[in-house]
């Protein structure tokens, strides 16, 4: 019999509090005026696309960007124009907050000095086996990008897909099949071990994102060889936006419970990706 077992308790109090404590942990706490709904120190997508962290062996956040003109919402738009660059949403505050939280709560050694934003065809992505992509409703890939991302996933890379809902699914599915033509995107339930790799997440029903028009959150995944007993290569947060929750966790914009759940998911994803 082979199975994974988690020791200790998830520390529910801490789980509830860290969203609040993040206010203090965040090293460069923003002036109060900046902590309101709206863009604070978010970067211009062009700036975000330039984020590069030197490889150090520490866990470094990798955000994938896409730049090809693509089709979304029934019409063409440029992917890199301000306001349309879903890949850069929450950049870089979300990743900074997440790094702070994992340093405080886990034994993971995070890189808090920087993060990466790379195109899918960049060979550097292979140095960072966890990648995050936001708003795949606008996502598009060249053949080279798709091939590189396929290699990344086959070799052992793990992809977190976040921040999309509704009709965005169709574009995401199309692009995902471009990357992995034989992939079966399957819905996950709470019993999957990714929801128990660090925090025990007993229900996935509390994760409805307020920006998703009240649609219930869903979690989907793609398994290696489409075999659910094997490694999960891609985790898909549909009708959800945990990056948004990470970004706004030091404000009152998103309820603290939801922020907590977003961090729990993020940490679980990372621990799972480092062990499976």
């Amino acid at each position, binding site marked *: *019999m*082979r*199975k*994974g*077992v*988690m*020791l*200790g308790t998830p520390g529910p109090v801490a789980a509830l509090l860290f969203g609040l404590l993040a206010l203090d942990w965040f090293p460069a706490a923003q002036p109060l005026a900046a902590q309101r709904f709206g863009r604070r120190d978010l970067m211009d997508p062009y700036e975000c696309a330039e984020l590069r962290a030197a*490889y*150090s*062996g520490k*866990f470094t956040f990798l955000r994938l960007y896409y730049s090809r003109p693509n089709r979304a919402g029934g019409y063409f738009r440029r992917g890199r124009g301000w306001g349309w660059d879903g890949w850069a949403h929450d950049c870089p505050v979300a990743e900074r907050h997440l790094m702070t939280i994992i340093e405080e*709560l*886990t*034994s*993971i*050694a995070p890189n808090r000095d920087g993060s990466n934003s790379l195109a899918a065809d960049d*060979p*550097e*992505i*292979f*140095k960072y*086996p966890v990648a995050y992509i936001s708003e795949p409703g606008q996502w598009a890939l060249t053949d080279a990008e798709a091939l590189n991302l396929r*290699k*990344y996933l*086959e*070799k*052992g*890379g793990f992809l977190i897909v976040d921040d999309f809902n509704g009709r965005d699914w169709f574009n995401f599915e199309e692009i995902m099949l471009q990357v992995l033509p034989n992939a079966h995107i399957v819905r996950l339930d709470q019993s999957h071990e990714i929801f128990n*790799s*660090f925090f025990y997440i007993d229900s996935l029903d509390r994760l409805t994102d307020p920006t998703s028009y009240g649609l219930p959150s869903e979690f989907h995944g793609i398994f290696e060889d489409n075999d659910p007993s094997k*490694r999960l290569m891609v985790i898909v947060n549909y009708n959800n936006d945990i990056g948004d929750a990470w970004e706004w966790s030091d404000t009152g914009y998103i309820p603290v419970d939801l922020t907590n759940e977003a961090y729990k998911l993020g940490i679980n994803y*990372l*621990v799972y*990706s*480092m*062990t*499976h």
Partner: protein
Amino acid sequence: MDRVFEFLFKYRPVVFERGDVSFQPPWPLWALLLVVSIGALIALAPYARASAKLRLRDRVALSALRVLALGVLLFCLARPILVVAVVVPQQNFLGILVDNSQSMRIADPDRPRGQIATELFGPESPIVSALSERFKVRFFSFADGAKRIGTLHEVAFDGRRTDLARSLEDVKGELGSLPLAGLIVVTDGGHNTATPLDPALLGLKAGKVPVHVVGLGQERIDREVEVLRADVPTMVMAGSAVAVDVTVGHSGLAGQTVPIRVEDEGRIVGVGQVQLPRDGEAGTTRLNFTAETGGARRLRFVVPPLEGEKIVENNSLDRVVEVQSGRQKILYYEGEPRFEVKFLRRAIEGDENLQVVVLLRTAQDKYLRLDVSDSTELASGFPGTREELFRYKGLVLGSIEASSFPPDQLRMISDFVSRRGGGLLVLGGRNAFAEGGYTGTPLADALPVVIEGPPRGEDYDFFDEVKVVPTPAGSAHPALQLARGGKDPATLWDALPQLSILNPVTEVKPGATLLLEGRGGRGDTYVVLAHHRFGRGKALALLPQDTWMWQMHADVAPEDSTHEALWQQLLRWVVSDVPDPVSITATPDRVEPGTPITFVAQVADSTFLGVNGAEVTATVVAPSGAQESIPMGWTVERDGEYRATFVPKEEGMHEVRVAASRAGNSLGSGTTHMDAGDIGAEFRGPGMRAPLLRSLAEQTGGGFYTAETASRLPEDVSITEAGATVREERDLWDMPALFLLLLGLIGGEWAYRKRRGLP
């Protein structure tokens, strides 16, 4: 040389060796001295007188020559004799032992040794006729024992081993009560059993029975190659890479390269080449192959016959290897979630022989267990007792600081290697080695590398990327045979991406082996992989923090299996020879039926302390299914070591099971295998072993002969103290050497005088 000696001294050296010199003067001694003195006075008188032409020096020289000549004359007049003991004709027995082993079929230089023996000692042989006139001759054939025969025509030369000691004892036992004048051993010198020769020789020496040896064959056979040894591990894991050092001897093939292969039940599993050094030296090569099938495997190492090679039976060597197909359990204790965990697990995912149980500290006092056998395993975290830790065969320590262990646990980890015999692999990381605070701890003692300095501080930021290069030892190491599908190993290592190091270790301990080194960006060289034996076990240090780069890096193809091969082979090697509490070995692992074999069992309790008062039984299951139980006794030499001897009667693979118990409680059991069959001992070292045979003859007072000199045997054998003998006096005064000496002295005086112008 003997002929010259015999010409000068009338008799052969052996007669002088066995005789005593004496004198039988015809006159009383005083008369002799008087005659010689008068003669000396007359002879020396001319030189005593002073002469203008003679200097003092000339007078002294000429006088000395004349005195010496008179001395020789006096010696002859004293009638020197040689007193020797010679056998009384037909009153003594003589045993002729003819080697019946297979090596007597070897044809060197032109016809089989056995044929030469038959020619020399067959019924029509002049030697035998001459011997028969003086002795009652008894013939024996011998191999692993001696057997009385009528004539040499009964000898088939088919013995598979030669036990000279036992054969001599057998003959001595049969003829010992008779007046025995000696033994003649006709052989090529093979003595290839473990029976010591000395006791047999002592018996013969005590009985004053000389052993005369006729050595057949050439000491050196040209264009000959032989597989001398193959150093195989006793036990390997199924599917593991195995490295075997094979030693090949030769004569007349210096500088040549010969192919060599490994066969598993006739199937070629590995090939290689060996370059042969100069004559008299053996060449060694390392063969790498994979042990695929579990169970006891009979591996054959073969050098194909060379053109013109006379002896091909020694071109192969069989060895038995236990291939374990069970799962070996390894505990991987990691202090931080990192990608090494993921990729290590993935690398060994399909390996049915490895179970890596991961205990991962995900946060302070929070652990994740992966691949545990049941819900209780490691439920309290890292094993707190030796009993619990020693259940694992291997231990991998990741980036986990020393301070996380209570002091006794660090000692326990050290004991895991030294006492339990487990395999320890310590990985690099921000909390490993000196940076993890291990300097001066018991774990540092176990490591193969030198670590110095305090734990890493908050501002510690050492980081370097290294190009990994195998050392010569690493290139040949079984765990590092990473090339697959005919890939060139050098190209493979060259193509591997750089890895990064957080622990700048630059020195291995004395006795440790550096397998991989890393060349850093600043020109520094670091230890990447090293190992050494520590007590009963082995410890390894693998310094890079991200071997997963060899799986993920952009330059590595998705189908590349280098990373999997590295981890599977490394972990297999770590646990490859880790003992169980109860184990047994057979030495040697291949013998001829009828040859004793020694079983040694190691019996320990669950904390691997040797148990001396146990009841230990070995059960041997023969190929026919017949079982024999043998009680094993404590050796007293070492705690927990038990020994027994077994003589196989059947040919084929025997299973040997050992079970140990104490006070009715089982301590455990173990299994090994041994093989009985033709081990080709007669063709190992096929040249005539002259040193052994000479020693045999010298120690017993006999002589050593070859086919060419065997005709001297009848006379030499007759001169002996053994058996019924009479004293025989032989004159020495008429030895040509004496006359030549006398002539020389007189001639010398004459020549000297001429040279000085004297009349």
